[in-house]
């Protein structure tokens, strides 16, 4: 093995909060060697990001760090926790650089990308004028931006998410760092883009011989990319080792749980004789791009003439990447966005109904959204959130009766009914998603639109929510429309799948045959990217 590059030695990070000290990172020790890729894996709140920001000297003000982070990449050995600010600035972006999760926000929207990359060069190298311009072009070409001469003058908003992440990588590589810290660099990206970015990182690592500290929650990515792995749980490293050995024989129960936390099980298909609950024909949705007070608007076609049929008890999965129109389609079916075409719900033509006419039907068709933080009003108690549907649909209920129903709904989603007087922010992501499910269930729907209900959750929490959804479907004979970009989850839950791209249906078949033998190139591409491990 080569030389050690960065050593974490009994790193501990405490946060002094008004209500006591919270230890985010506790006694963490590991070493990254030159040229290797080490993955730091853990679920949200495990302290993996804090560990990496400690190495960059970027800890928040409230944090206190102790222990030692030895950097062997400079002239001698240095402790990154105790070096001077000047030295730290010289290291950042030059010897160690970092890329972040959110390519939308980590570039300054006011500056051209060429200028942002040049800024790094000016700070750390002697390159100026023509030669720095040349170097920026070179970098952009290396990270696979097409037409670098033209793109160098683009603003961040003119680039796609994947391209922005490439620009971030170009910035990070500008000074040929010895270590690249990548904090969930592909989490916000579509799976096909993620596969491209990972391939790019591998390629660049080989070219520059740099080490990568890769922080992620996604074990598929780890297996694909890393040489060794550290698994973190609640601020501690519970297991560390070479990637292959760790995946083959995980020792710690938490690692075993993480590896096993893959959506399993399949759904029995409903018989073709089951009555049709929802039938949609020629659904078309368009949004005005440019609104004018006078004159015609310009439109973006989000969903193009889609037909679908849902039978009672069925789960129809809709998969697609961002911008494929899957979410818009779901909202159109619930009449939450304007659409043209016919929608028949239980033989009622809902497309012709107005707001008031829709109201009685609303209790029969409900929705659970992706973001468990955004889908609950922060200023209403959980009891009020869940009870609101009852106020609308059963206005004659007395307060006590409503309260009983709210308690029942909370018990149904396995939450403590005593918590109904609390506010949403006091709950974790998974609990909030259960609250959102309870809000939908309390009005006794027959049809539930699930719009990426598990995407914002940790894998282990996802499993419990999926199990809950399964149980509820069996108990109440619910019909689901399950929208997701996560093919593994869809495979476990749906009995029929629609693959969407740019507002159109690419492929539509029963789950088993679609996953076993996808017919369309796009579907195959999507699956290859989603199940990285199968091609690694």
């Amino acid at each position, binding site marked *: 093995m080569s030389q050690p590059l960065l050593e974490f030695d009994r790193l501990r990070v405490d946060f002094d*909060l008004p*209500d*006591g000290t*919270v230890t985010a990172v506790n006694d963490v020790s590991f070493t990254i060697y030159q040229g290797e890729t080490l993955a730091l894996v853990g679920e949200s709140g495990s302290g993996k990001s804090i560990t990496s920001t400690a190495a960059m000297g970027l800890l928040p003000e409230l944090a206190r760090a102790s222990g030692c982070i030895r950097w062997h990449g400079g002239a001698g050995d240095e402790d990154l926790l105790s070096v001077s600010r000047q030295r730290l600035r010289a290291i950042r972006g030059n010897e160690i650089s970092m890329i972040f999760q959110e390519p939308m926000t980590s570039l300054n929207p006011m500056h051209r990308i060429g200028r942002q990359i040049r800024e790094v060069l000016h700070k750390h190298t002697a390159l100026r004028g023509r030669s720095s311009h040349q170097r920026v072009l070179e970098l952009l070409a290396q990270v696979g931006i097409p037409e670098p001469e033209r793109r160098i003058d683009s603003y961040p908003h003119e680039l796609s998410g994947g391209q922005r992440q490439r620009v971030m990588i170009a910035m990070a590589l500008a000074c040929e760092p010895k270590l690249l810290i990548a904090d969930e660099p592909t989490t916000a990206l579509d799976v096909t883009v993620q596969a491209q970015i990972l391939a790019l990182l591998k390629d660049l690592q080989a070219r520059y011989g740099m080490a990568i500290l890769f922080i992620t929650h996604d074990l598929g990515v780890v297996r694909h990319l890393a040489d060794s792995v550290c698994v973190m749980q609640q601020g501690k490293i519970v297991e560390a080792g070479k990637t292959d050995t760790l995946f083959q024989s995980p020792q710690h129960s938490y690692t075993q749980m993480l590896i096993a936390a893959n959506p399993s099980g399949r759904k029995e298909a409903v018989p073709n004789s089951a009555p049709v609950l929802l039938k949609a024909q020629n659904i078309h949705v368009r949004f005005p791009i440019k*609104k004018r*007070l006078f004159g015609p608007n310009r439109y973006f076609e989000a969903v193009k003439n889609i037909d679908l049929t849902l039978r009672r008890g069925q789960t129809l999965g809709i998969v697609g990447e961002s911008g494929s129109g899957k979410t818009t389609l779901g*909202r159109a079916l*619930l009449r*939450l966005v304007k659409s043209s075409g016919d929608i028949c719900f239980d033989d009622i033509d809902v497309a012709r109904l107005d707001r008031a006419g*829709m*109201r*009685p039907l*609303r*209790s029969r*068709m*409900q*929705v659970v*959204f*992706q*973001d468990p933080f*955004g*889908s*609950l*009003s*922060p*200023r*209403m*108690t959980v009891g*009020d*959130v869940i009870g*609101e*549907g009852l106020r*609308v*649909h059963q206005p004659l209920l007395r307060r006590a009766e409503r309260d009983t129903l709210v308690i029942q709904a909370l018990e149904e989603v396995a939450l403590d009914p005593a*918590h109904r*007087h*609390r*506010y949403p*922010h*006091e*709950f*974790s992501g998974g609990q909030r998603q259960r609250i*959102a499910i309870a*809000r939908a269930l309390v*009005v006794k729907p027959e049809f539930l639109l699930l719009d990426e209900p598990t995407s914002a959750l940790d894998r282990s929490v996802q499993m419990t929510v999926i199990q809950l959804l399964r149980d509820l479907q069996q108990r109440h004979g619910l019909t689901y429309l399950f929208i997701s970009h996560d093919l593994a989850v869809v495979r476990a839950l749906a009995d029929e799948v629609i693959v969407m791209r740019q507002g159109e249906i690419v492929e539509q078949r029963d789950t088993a045959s679609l996953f076993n033998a996808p017919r369309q190139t796009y579907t195959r591409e999507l699956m290859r990217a989603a199940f990285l491990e199968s091609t690694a």
Partner: protein
Amino acid sequence: MIMNNTTLTAPAVGNSLARDAWRRLRQNGAATVSLVLLAVISLVCFVGPWLTPWALDEVDWNAFLAPPSIESGHYAGTDSNGRDLLTRVFYGGQISLSVALVATLVSLVIGVLYGAIAGYFGGRVDNLMMRFVDIMYSLPFMFMVILLMVVFGRNILLIYAAIGAVEWLDMSRIVRGQVLALKRREFVEAAHALGVSSFKIVTRHLIPNAIGPVIIYVTLTVPKVILLESFLSFLGLGVQEPLTSWGVLISEGKDMMETAPWMLIVPSAFLAITLLCLNFLGDGLRDALDPKTR
């Protein structure tokens, strides 16, 4: 952190946001003290005139520009006309506080509703409603006040109306901006999916979540209104002698700063304490209405 929270805010039965907010407000020391002080000041302004030995326009021929003294009964001295300053400050407080209260309430109610409706419905409705606001903005304030005076004659109520009619414009823009951002949030969409009526969505979901900046703006509006009123009075469009207001008293006191400093200090002190209390109370209210702060 989530766990800590849940154990500490053990709920009483039947909480509502308002009740929780009231409980949190009382836990906030500065806000509680401010609330009490404001109550005391208002009480004194409305009851005080009966307790002082002098009437509003009563001239004490023995004491022109007399400094504060206990024996003479002029506890805060007299002005250049020999009128008791403390009595005048109390009466002035009645005017200033009620202008502030009424004008701010008017601007709050109109502004919040107008802005929330424009933001919520969006599109053409929003466009038309906000263009109307733009037109109102472009009319000079004085022009509107004079217009009102001409039409309705001079009346203290008109000052309230005029000031309120101008201040709600800012408020509506602030609320509209908030609502525009909020209505895209998923909890609003979930309410739509439940069939909640537009009115309920605006009042139960949008306005409570937009309340933070609104309260901050209200605490900024109150001093603005009090100063506007004194400006109008200075131009002869506001309150008229012998009636007075804090703004008028301060502007009179400013001219006598060197010979009779109490004429500036006493009304200024009342105004300053009131505004300070309002700021603390505003901050306290904003925090109390946000369940995330404890």
